[in-house]
């Protein structure tokens, strides 16, 4: 029954789509699903990059953000893959490696095949933070402690099988130590609070949030889980520089996608306009002010990035 309805809807939308969508899309406001809570880093950035959508040179229609938070993003993406209408009026924000890692781990109804990427707007590397009064001053100190006290070094992150957890797994693997990763409920903010309040000894967090916390004098940033140093933190060395073989697999890429089955004309229109929308000077100014690194990629580049990420993650998660 469900398949039948789905089929009928699909047929109808394609019928209508072929004629209408090519020139008229979009003719009403577009909705964008963010699978994290209002006020989180993804939500905040999504609101900034879509704020110029109503301009004539962009979509010409505003984009409204809808939050569907829960279980590290699984709730939102599951809804997006199974229940969202593929009519071009329902966009979604993706977080790589989060949704790819979750789909590899299983228990969800989506994979890279369930979605069509449109464009990427940002890349937020994970960083390792400790409280300001912590005796640890480099990643070597962290690893040395973990070596002496196997499984006793507690460090927080935003959940299981999200970017922070991937970074944690990479660190454990590269340094050959056992540590205690503590996933928190409530995203990066809760994980950061645990570090500042001294509930845990360290933490993996978003570069943008950690940068702010460091400015406020609450944490020290010991290393960046990326290939190169970040423009926001030119003095903080990467993990690779500190002698750990860790690539950019945990970098949190954020961008826009649509569900599979969206009419190709719509995808083409979006893929052409959305990256231009991101390039708007106003957007980059606001993103910069908020300490959020931008990284604009086109649809083709994102497809490539998703495929590459899936391969690395399958390898990394195979042992778990």
């Amino acid at each position: 029954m469900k398949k039948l309805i789905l089929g009928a809807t699909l047929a109808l939308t394609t019928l209508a789509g072929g004629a209408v969508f090519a020139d008229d899309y979009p003719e009403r406001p577009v909705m964008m699903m963010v699978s994290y809570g209002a006020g989180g880093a993804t939500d905040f950035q999504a609101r900034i990059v879509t704020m110029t959508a109503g301009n004539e040179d962009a979509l010409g229609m505003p984009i409204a953000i809808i939050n569907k938070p829960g279980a590290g993003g699984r709730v939102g993406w599951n809804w997006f893959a199974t229940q969202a209408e593929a009519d071009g009026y329902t966009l979604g924000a993706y977080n790589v490696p989060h949704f790819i890692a979750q789909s590899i781990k299983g228990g969800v109804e989506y994979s890279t095949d369930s979605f069509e990427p449109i464009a990427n707007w940002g890349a937020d590397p994970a960083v390792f933070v400790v409280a300001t009064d912590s005796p640890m001053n480099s990643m070597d100190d962290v690893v040395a402690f973990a070596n002496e006290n196997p499984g006793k070094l507690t460090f927080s992150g935003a959940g299981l099988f999200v970017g922070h957890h991937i970074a944690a797994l990479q660190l454990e693997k590269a340094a050959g130590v056992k540590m205690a990763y503590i996933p928190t409920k409530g995203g990066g903010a809760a994980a950061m609070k645990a570090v500042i309040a001294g509930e845990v000894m360290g933490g993996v967090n978003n570069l943008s949030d950690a940068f702010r916390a460091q400015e406020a004098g609450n944490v020290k940033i010991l290393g960046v889980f990326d290939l190169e140093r970040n423009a926001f933190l030119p003095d903080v060395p990467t993990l690779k520089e500190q002698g750990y073989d860790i690539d950019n697999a945990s970098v949190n890429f954020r961008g826009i996608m649509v569900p599979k089955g969206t009419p190709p004309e719509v995808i083409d229109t979006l893929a052409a306009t959305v990256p231009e929308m991101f390039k708007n000077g106003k957007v980059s100014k606001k993103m910069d002010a908020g300490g959020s690194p931008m990284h604009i990629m086109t649809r083709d580049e994102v497809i490539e990035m998703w495929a590459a990420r899936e391969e690395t993650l399958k390898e990394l998660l195979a042992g778990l």
Partner: protein
Amino acid sequence: MTVPSLPRVQHIVASGVIAAVGCWVAWVSYTQQPAEAFLFPRLISTVFVVLALWTFAKALMGWTKVGHGLGRIDVINLFPGLIIALIYVFWLAKALGFYTAGAIVFFILLAIYDPAPHRELKTWIKRIIITACYLVVMYGLFAKLLKVYTPREVFF
């Protein structure tokens, strides 16, 4: 009271249903994997089952103190409204769009529960006007002010 009164039978049925739900929850909690994720549900469901069985036992013994159950008149009055409300929520709202379905259901409910005499034209005019006002307010509040895009199928 020699024969079990209506509320007593109802109390037995109601607490029986709750106890059954509790047992189902407990069964699911104790059988599903992964065990770590069901730790908390196990804890809750255990307390749930104990309390539910206690309530059930109390109902069986006729010791239930609170709750008046449902009277016959209540059920007769409730039935049409409940059915229409359920049809509205689970089917009509999506099928006809929120505003169209909302207006139709509003009008039907008004016609059923408004005590004004059905035979007078004035009554019907009043009902139509109230429905129209309702529609305007809802549309203004949700579509215009809050910009919520509700499902739309027929008209708007």
